[in-house]
C-alpha cells in the first residue's frame, strides 16, 4: 500500500498510470467495437427492413375515386349523372364537442334540423369513414364564408365531391334505384367479396335498382397516388400515380318517353307496368307507382322523410313491378287455354253450356261465374273474349293441378324471370307437392277450381306476367328480360351489347297459338271485355283483362264497388301485345284498387302501345264516365 512507501518512485508511478490508461483504452475499444457491430447490424443486415419502415413512414397511398358511370335510356337521354359540388364534412374523431361545433357552423352555413338528423343517422350507420357530411351542395358564398373562418374549426373541412343525381326523380326511382353512402353492412359485404380495396376512397355504393345490380360496371376502378407525407401527415409531393378508370356507361333498353307516357297514363292510380319487346327481351318501360325521389337517399336521408316514405299507406318504396305479388285473375286464361289445347283436354270446337256457375261432382258448392245466369254456350274463343269463368273452372278440374302447374311453368310462372335487377319475387304456382311442403296438407279438388281463373294460391308479379305475355306473343320463345342494352367502357370506347339467351323454348302448336291470339285480339273489339280501350286502334291489338281480388267474397255475397273502401277494391289487370300478327311490344298493367281491368288498365296499355308503335302522344283524356260492360270475377 502506498501509505507505507516513504519515497515515491516516479517511474513506477508513470508505469502504473499508463497501465490504467491502457486498460481504459482497451475498454474503450471494446465499446467502439460494440458500436460498430450495432451500426453494421442496423445499416447492413437490417437495412432493407428499416428502409421499408422509412418508406412506410413517409409514403401514404391516397385512393382516387373513379367517376361513376352514367346511365342513359335507349335513345341516350341521361337518367343518372354526376355533378361536382362542395360538402362540409366533419371528422368526429378530431372534434371534441360535436354539438357545439355544429352550432357554431350553423352561424356560417345554413344547417337545418333536417341536416342534423341526417348527420346523426350517418354516424350510427357507418364506422368506416373518417368524415361525414353535415351539409352538401354548399353555395359559393357558403364556401367562402367557411374558408375565412376555417382556423376556428379543426376537424371540419370543405370537400369537393361528385354527387349522383337522378334528373327524372320519381319517374326512374324503381328502375334505376339510387346510390347511398357506404354503411357498415356494405363495408362488410365488400370485405367479403374481397373488393374493399377498390372502395377505399369511395363514399357511395349502389343500394337498389340498376345502381345496385350493375354496381361493378358502374363503379369503375380506383386509381391511387403514392404521396410523400411528413411527420404531421401533410402531403409533400406525389411520387407516382395510377389514374382511376371511370365506370362504364349503361345504355338501358327502356325509353324514358315511353316510361313517362305510361306513368302519366296511370293518373292517380297506384300500380305497375312492365313492357317488353318479345323479340329480344328488352324491357321498354318499367313503372311502379308511386315512386319516390331517389335524390333524397344519395347523401343519407333524414329520419322524418324516411319515416314518411316508409310508413305511407301507398308504400312508395315497394317496387311493385318487381316484387309485388298479386293473383293474376283472368289474365291467366289465355295461358290456361294454351295449356288445355296442348294437354289435349280441350279442342277449339269443344263447348260447354254455362249456367253461371260450376260445381264439382258430388258437391253442392257453387263456383260462380262473374256473370249471373252465365254466358250460354261457350267455346274456347268465346271463353277468352268474354272471359268466361265456368269454362276455366272445368278446364282446370279436368287437367288436374299438377298438369296446370307444369304447363303454366313453361310460360315462366312461379319462378324469377331472371331480370337483371336484384330482389325479384318468384310469384307462386301451386301444386300438390307445394301444398304438402308449404302447409303439410293434401290438395283438395276444390283448390284446383279457382286456380283455373287465376285466383286461389296463384300469385304473379307484373314483371312475370309481362314476360309470360311476351312469351305467348313470341310463339312460346322467351328471351330473358333485361334492362341494360349495352355497357360502354369509358376508357377504351368498347361497347358490349347485352344479348341474353332464350330461356323459354316452349313452342305450342301454331294453330293453338293462332286460336288464342285471335281470341285475345277480339277482346279489344266490340263484344270483348276491353272493347272500349281497343276502339279505333289502327293495329291488331291483343289483350286480356283481369281482376285480382283483394278481399274474398262469401257464398251468395255480391261485390258492390261503391260499398267497399277504396283500398279493398279489386286490382285491375291488363295484359296486351301488339301488333297481334307481328308483336313488337308485350306488356302487363296492374292498377291497384282500380276495380276493372277493362276500364282502367286497358286504356293505360293502349296509350303505351299507341306511343310505341305509332309515336302518338295521348291527349289528357279524363276517365270514362259511361258504364261499360265489364267483367267482375
Amino acid at each position, binding site marked *: 500500500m*502506498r*501509505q507505507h512507501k516513504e519515497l*515515491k518512485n516516479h517511474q513506477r*508511478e508513470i508505469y*502504473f*498510470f*499508463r497501465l*490504467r*490508461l491502457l486498460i*481504459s*483504452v482497451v475498454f*474503450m475499444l471494446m*465499446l*467502439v467495437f*460494440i*458500436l*460498430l457491430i*450495432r*451500426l*453494421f447490424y*442496423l*445499416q*447492413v443486415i*437490417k*437495412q432493407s*427492413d*428499416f*428502409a421499408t*419502415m*422509412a*418508406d412506410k*413512414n*413517409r409514403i401514404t397511398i391516397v385512393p382516387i375515386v373513379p367517376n361513376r358511370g352514367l346511365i342513359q335510356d335507349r335513345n341516350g337521354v341521361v337518367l343518372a349523372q354526376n355533378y361536382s359540388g362542395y360538402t362540409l364534412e366533419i371528422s368526429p374523431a378530431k372534434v371534441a364537442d360535436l354539438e357545439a361545433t355544429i352550432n357554431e357552423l350553423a352561424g356560417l352555413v345554413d344547417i337545418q334540423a333536417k341536416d342534423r338528423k341526417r348527420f346523426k343517422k350517418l354516424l350510427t350507420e357507418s364506422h368506416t369513414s373518417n368524415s361525414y357530411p353535415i351539409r352538401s351542395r354548399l353555395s359559393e358564398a357558403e364556401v367562402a364564408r367557411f374558408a375565412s373562418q376555417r382556423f376556428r374549426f379543426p376537424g371540419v373541412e370543405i370537400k369537393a365531391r361528385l354527387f349522383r343525381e337522378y334528373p327524372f326523380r320519381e319517374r326512374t326511382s324503381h328502375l334505376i334505384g339510387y346510390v347511398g353512402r357506404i354503411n357498415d353492412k356494405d363495408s362488410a359485404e365488400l370485405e367479403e367479396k374481397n373488393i374493399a380495396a377498390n372502395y377505399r376512397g369511395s363514399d357511395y355504393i349502389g343500394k337498389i335498382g340498376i345502381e345496385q345490380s350493375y354496381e361493378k360496371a358502374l363503379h369503375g376502378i380506383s386509381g391511387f397516388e403514392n404521396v*410523400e*407525407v*411528413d*411527420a*404531421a401527415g401533410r402531403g*409533400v409531393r406525389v411520387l407516382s400515380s395510377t389514374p382511376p378508370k371511370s365506370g362504364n356507361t349503361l345504355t338501358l333498353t327502356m325509353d324514358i318517353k315511353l316510361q313517362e307516357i305510361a306513368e302519366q297514363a296511370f293518373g292517380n292510380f297506384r300500380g305497375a307496368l312492365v313492357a317488353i319487346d318479345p323479340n329480344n327481351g328488352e324491357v321498354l318501360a318499367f313503372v311502379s307507382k308511386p315512386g319516390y325521389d331517389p335524390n333524397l337517399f344519395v347523401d343519407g336521408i333524414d329520419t322524418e322523410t324516411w319515416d314518411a316514405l316508409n310508413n305511407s299507406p301507398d308504400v312508395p318504396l315497394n317496387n311493385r313491378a318487381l316484387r309485388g305479388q298479386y293473383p293474376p285473375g283472368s289474365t291467366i286464361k289465355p295461358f290456361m287455354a294454351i295449356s288445355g289445347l296442348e294437354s289435349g283436354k280441350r279442342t277449339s270446337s269443344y263447348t260447354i253450356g254455362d249456367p253461371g256457375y260450376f260445381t264439382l261432382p258430388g258437391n253442392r258448392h257453387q263456383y260462380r261465374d262473374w256473370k249471373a245466369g252465365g254466358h250460354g254456350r261457350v267455346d274456347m274463343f268465346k271463353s277468352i273474349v268474354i272471359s268466361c269463368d265456368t269454362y276455366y273452372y272445368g278446364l282446370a278440374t279436368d287437367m288436374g293441378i299438377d298438369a296446370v302447374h307444369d304447363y303454366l311453368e313453361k310460360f315462366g310462372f312461379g319462378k324469377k324471370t331472371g331480370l337483371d335487377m336484384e330482389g325479384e319475387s318468384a310469384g307462386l304456382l301451386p301444386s300438390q307437392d307445394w301444398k304438402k311442403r308449404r302447409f303439410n296438407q293434401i290438395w283438395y279438388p276444390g283448390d284446383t277450381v279457382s286456380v283455373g281463373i287465376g285466383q286461389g294460391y296463384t300469385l304473379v308479379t307484373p314483371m312475370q306476367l309481362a314476360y309470360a305475355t311476351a312469351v305467348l306473343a313470341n310463339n312460346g320463345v322467351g328471351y330473358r328480360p333485361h334492362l341494360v342494352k349495352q355497357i360502354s367502357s369509358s376508357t377504351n370506347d368498347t361497347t358490349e351489347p347485352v344479348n341474353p339467351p332464350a330461356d323459354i323454348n316452349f313452342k305450342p302448336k301454331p294453330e293453338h297459338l293462332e286460336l288464342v291470339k285471335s281470341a285475345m285480339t277480339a277482346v279489344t273489339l266490340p263484344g270483348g271485355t276491353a272493347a272500349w280501350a281497343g276502339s279505333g286502334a289502327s293495329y291488331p291489338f291483343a289483350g286480356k283483362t283481369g281482376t285480382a281480388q283483394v278481399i274474398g267474397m262469401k257464398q251468395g255475397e255480391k261485390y258492390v264497388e261503391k260499398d267497399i273502401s277504396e283500398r279493398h277494391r279489386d286490382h285491375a289487370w291488363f295484359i296486351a301485345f301488339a301488333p297481334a300478327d307481328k308483336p313488337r311490344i308485350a306488356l302487363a298493367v296492374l292498377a291497384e284498387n282500380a276495380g276493372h281491368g277493362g276500364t282502367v288498365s286497358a286504356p293505360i296499355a293502349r296509350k303505351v302501345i299507341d306511343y310505341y308503335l305509332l309515336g302518338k302522344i295521348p291527349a289528357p283524356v279524363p276517365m270514362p264516365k259511361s258504364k261499360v260492360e265489364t267483367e267482375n270475377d
Partner: protein
Amino acid sequence: MINQFQRRFMTHLDPMLLGALGALMFISLVLIYSASGGSFDRVMGQFINILVAFAALWLVANMPLHYLIRSAVPIYILGMVLLLGVAFFGDIQNGARRWLNLGVATVQPSELMKIALPLMMAWYFERHEATLAMKNYAFAVILLIVPFALILRQPDLGTAMLILASGFYVLFLAGLNWKIIVGLIVTALASAPFLWHALHDYQRQRILMLFNPEDDRLGKGYHTIQGMIAVGSGGIFGKGYLNGTQTHLEFLPERTTDFIFAVYSEEFGLFGNLILLGIYMFILWRGYVITANASTYFTRLMAGSITLTFFTYTFVNMGMVSGILPVVGVPLPLVSYGGTSMLTLYLGFGMLMSIHSHKTLVQS
C-alpha cells in the same frame, strides 16, 4: 508576419487536435443545415457558438497551468453554489429543474460541473499525491457524489451519469484499488433496484423502451424507433446529403441536437459513420498521447478524465441513437447544435492543449 502570427496565436494550440476539431466543425455546420431544413440562421448560430467556444479554448490553452490549478477550488465551489441554487430557486422547464435564472442570463450549472468536478478531484489528488491514503479516496468520492446526487434530483439522468463517469475516471486513473473498484461496481449493481425505485417515471419508461420500443411506437418509444429507422435505412452509403427522408419529413425528433447522429447516419450511411468514428478516434488517440505524456500528476488525471469523458459523450450519444442505450439527453459532442456543450467541450480541449504545450515549453 505569418511566423509572428503563428507565434502569437498558435504556439499553444495543438495542430492535430485543431485539425480534427475543424473537421467536426465542418460536419456540424453541414449537418445542421440539413437537419434544420436549410436554415442558415441555425448554421450561423452554431458557427457563433463555435467561435465563442474557440475563443475560450484559445484563452485556456494560453493560460499557464498554475492558473488552472488555482482555479479548481473556486470553480468547484461556484458550481456547487449554483447547483444548490437550482435545487432551491431553479426554473422548471419540461418538468425538470435544471436552469438558474441569474437575471442577466439563464445558466445550466450542471454543464459547469462537467469541467469543475474533474478539475477539483485532480487538484485534490495532486495535493495529497505524496501521502495518498484511503481517506483521500473516500473524500474524493464525496466530492463526486454530492454534485451527482444534486443533478440526479433535477432530474437529469444523462448529465448525472456523465458527471459520475468523469469523476470515476479521475478515481480510476488516480490508482483507486481494484478491490474497491470491484466493490463499487458490485454496490452499484446491488443498489440498482433501489436506484430504479428512486428514478422518475419518465426515466424508467425510457429505460424500458430500450428493451421493447415497439410497445409504444408513438409515445416514449418514438424517439428510439425513428432514430433506428433513420440509421438503418441509411444503409452502407446513405441516402445522400439533404435526401434523408426521416430527417426532412421530420419523423426524427431533436434533429439538430441529440439525434443529429441519426441525420448523419441516414444521409451518409455506414461509410460516413466510419469516417466520423475515425475522426473521433483520432481525437481520442491524440488525447491519450497528451495524457500519457503529461508531466504532472494533476495534468495526467485532468487530461485522462477529459479524454475519457469525451469518449463517453460520444459513445452514449451514438449508443442512444442506434438503440443500445436509453434515450438520455446527451448531445453528440462537437457536432450537435448548442452553445453550452460546445463551450464546455472546447474548454476541455483548451486544457488538453495547455497541458501539452506548457509541458513542452517547460521541457524546452
